[in-house]
């Protein structure tokens, strides 16, 4: 089975839950954003337990059913606290 490689970035508390700022992640071809969320939740249990996390794809919020492709940037967005 062919794979794609995406870039994952972790922000705010998610950086600490994952123990990193960013990573390359292998995913199955035609994986959805939701599937990526599943892979990351398993890989980082603390991230899997967090409430209110959103995933951004290439700096935009999109449906979890959106397919990701090689080179895409997926960002883990915990509840924001700016201002």
């Amino acid at each position, binding site marked *: 089975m062919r794979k794609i490689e995406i870039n994952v*970035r972790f*922000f*705010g*508390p998610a950086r*600490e839950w994952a123990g990193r700022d960013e990573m390359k992640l292998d995913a199955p071809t035609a994986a959805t954003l939701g599937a990526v969320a599943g892979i990351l939740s398993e890989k980082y249990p603390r991230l899997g337990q967090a409430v209110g996390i959103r995933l*951004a794809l290439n*700096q*935009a919020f999109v449906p979890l059913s959106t397919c990701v492709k090689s080179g895409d940037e997926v*960002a883990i*967005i*915990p*509840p*924001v*606290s*700016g*201002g």
Partner: protein
Amino acid sequence: MDKIILTRDPLDANIASTLHRYDAGAVATFAGTVRAEDACNRQLLALDYEAYEEMAIAMLTNICKRAIEQFAVLDAIIAHRLGRVKLGEASIVVAVVSAHRVEAFDACRWIVDQVKTDVPIWKKDVWSDGSTSWVDPS
């Protein structure tokens, strides 16, 4: 002058002066400042801000644009600080200019609310005992 500012430098509270227009009759400005807090015998010293910068700038630009359209104001500017912001310093400054005061107040308030609820920026409390803790946005 840029209408969207994300910076590690101290913010200019008088940011509205960059929006100088002869068709403006009202300027509403909001500054959010780091407020002293005590918890369990420790004092808040500062807040550490971080952002998903590329996305934050895109969203702030969009908020600015929507405010100008929805409230029919003349112009708006949003500045947010990153990195360590000490007690009493401003973490956010929003300014709106318009013909009349009601829209200026309404748009300014709306922008601040949007930034706080939607833009990928996070802050961490920095305490006098050396500990830090992410601020719970709820």
